[in-house]
């Protein structure tokens, strides 16, 4: 007899599938991106672009960024760099003095004597100056470490030929050379989170976020949202994106315009960066609460598919914990149903894993050559064993039972039950293990052990764990600090 409790528990288990279904939806949409005619209204145009680079103690990376920017395939008379020096205390001012004399018509140094208010305030300082003059037709907000490929900017500006387009972003790739295991995990993640997910959002007609390192905004759109970006959150780029779309403009992603950025090399570095992003996402969720699931909202922000994408990311850990709790409870009250639910969930996980992983590897073959192993190990070795155990476990178990029976050792034992219970719990425990890994890296006693354990636990559980930590911070109203990601200038040489 199926009781209400059984239905609730199975629904809890299936909530874990939400993330998987949305993932499959995104990759399916990315595959048919061409059918949405992303280049239909594209025309070669070269608007006057003011590049805003906020900089606080960025001497290690800034020189190369400026040189590369000034060497872009873009008319020199249509490009100006405004480096907003947020009261740097290193060699940044001296470097900028040199660069402004080297490129007198191209590079401008704007210094804030009182710094430390955060990136958004720094950018707004630059925007006030730029919008105070009539020269700029579009504004590109980028970071001091981001290296643009030579054609990236003009690949982005061509979308602004369509007056309905208010902002454009591009594909940011992890560029640290030589990178370590963490860089390669991030490299693979960016295929899924940018190259695939943002193409899918193009198809849906709505973008969740202009990548912070490459936000091209038309002057008209920027002025319509008040000529400044949000300073009250940790996700100023997402706020800008939402505001531009609510102002009636389209936001486009161009996956063929590529820029390179330096990403964290350690768990602790990644933790700081992603905690900031996750807190920003919670802030966006609350601030735009009147937008969700309201189909008539401007810019498709209120559509159901977009809400599914957004909430599957923001509440991913919640869904996973619910699935785990449902499985464990079923284990104790209805073992056969627990086994069936477990198999169904892990079969779907297996299908999603194969679809997402192989689609990603084919979507960006250049990155795939470097990061394929991290792509395969993204969920962690233990989760992979569970996935293939879910798919092939019954077969293997049947063969095993036959062999055991042949030697007279068959029969139900405690071990399989404990394995099943551990597998049910692992969804949640993997996040705890990821937190333990962060602590292990922080203590610094066995640094050689961190990477192997990371492959065991998985990068995905680490991201879920960061989201939980960010949610906890947000709930207790922790201070909003802009923890700057350390940049060392390790981005390789790219065309």
């Amino acid at each position: 007899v199926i009781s209400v409790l059984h239905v609730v528990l199975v629904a809890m288990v299936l909530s874990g599938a939400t993330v998987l279904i949305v993932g499959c939806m995104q990759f399916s949409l990315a595959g048919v991106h061409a059918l949405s005619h992303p280049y239909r209204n594209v025309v070669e145009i070269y608007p006057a672009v003011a590049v805003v680079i906020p900089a606080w103690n960025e001497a290690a990376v800034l020189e190369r960024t400026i040189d590369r920017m000034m060497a872009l395939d873009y008319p020199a008379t249509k490009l100006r760099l405004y480096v907003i020096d947020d009261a740097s205390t290193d060699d940044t001012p001296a470097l900028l003095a040199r660069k402004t004399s080297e490129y007198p018509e191209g590079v401008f140094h704007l210094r804030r004597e009182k710094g430390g208010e955060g990136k958004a305030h720094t950018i707004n300082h630059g925007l006030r100056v730029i919008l105070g003059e009539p020269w700029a037709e579009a504004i590109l907000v980028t970071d001091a470490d981001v290296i643009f490929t030579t054609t990236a900017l003009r690949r982005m500006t061509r979308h602004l030929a369509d007056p309905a387009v208010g902002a454009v972003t591009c594909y940011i790739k992890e560029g640290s050379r030589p990178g370590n295991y963490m860089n390669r995990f991030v490299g693979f993640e960016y295929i899924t989170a940018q190259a695939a997910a943002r193409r899918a959002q193009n198809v849906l007609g709505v973008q969740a976020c202009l990548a912070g390192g490459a936000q091209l905004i038309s002057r008209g759109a920027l002025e319509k949202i008040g000529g400044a970006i949000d300073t009250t959150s940790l996700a100023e780029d997402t706020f800008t994106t939402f505001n531009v779309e609510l102002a009636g403009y389209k936001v486009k992603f161009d996956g063929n315009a590529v820029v390179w950025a330096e990403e964290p090399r350690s768990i602790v570095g990644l933790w700081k960066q992603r905690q900031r992003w996750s807190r920003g996402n919670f802030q966006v969720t609350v601030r735009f609460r009147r937008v969700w699931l309201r189909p008539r909202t401007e810019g498709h922000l209120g559509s159901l598919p977009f809400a599914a994408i957004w909430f599957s990311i923001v509440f991913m850990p919640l869904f996973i914990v619910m699935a785990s709790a449902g499985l464990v409870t079923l284990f104790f009250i209805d073992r056969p149903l627990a086994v069936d639910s477990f198999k169904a969930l892990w079969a779907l996980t297996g299908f999603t894993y194969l679809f997402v992983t192989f689609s990603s590897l084919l979507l960006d073959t250049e990155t795939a050559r470097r990061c394929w192993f991290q792509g395969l190990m993204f969920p962690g070795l233990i989760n992979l064993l569970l996935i293939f155990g879910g798919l092939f476990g019954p077969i293997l178990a049947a063969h095993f039972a036959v062999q055991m029976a042949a030697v007279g050792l068959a029969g139900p034992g405690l071990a399989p039950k404990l394995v099943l219970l551990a597998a049910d719990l692992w969804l949640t425990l993997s996040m705890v293990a990821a937190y333990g890994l962060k602590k292990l890296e922080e203590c610094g006693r066995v640094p050689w052990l961190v990477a192997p354990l990371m492959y065991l636990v998985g990068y995905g559980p680490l991201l879920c764990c960061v989201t939980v930590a960010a949610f906890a911070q947000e709930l207790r109203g922790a201070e909003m600090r802009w923890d700057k990601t350390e940049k060392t200038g390790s981005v390789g040489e790219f065309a």
Partner: protein
Amino acid sequence: LIAEDRARTGRSLSAGKATVVLAMAMLIAAMLRHRRNVRRVGGGHGAGLRRDRVARQAGRVRVNAEDRDLKLTTTAAEDLEADRGFERSLVAREAAVVALIAALIVVRQLLS
């Protein structure tokens, strides 16, 4: 196999065989699509390496932008054609992945 299946189940095509046929059809479609894209603008497997070069060769349209600086290396029309080709190739790539997964499902069914 089909004859054996008919004798055993009374149906001419079981779900497993149908999946095999579907997977093969998708694989062939993906391969044909891949060949067409390679011929056109260098899409398909290896497109990331090849597409700019192929697009340059195929770049029959050159835009004469008067205000363009001399340092531009490829024309915007070439970029555009290459990018369109790459986006078109994604359909084939996804189809190949789906075919692969379908094949794995068939293997799993056969094993059981």
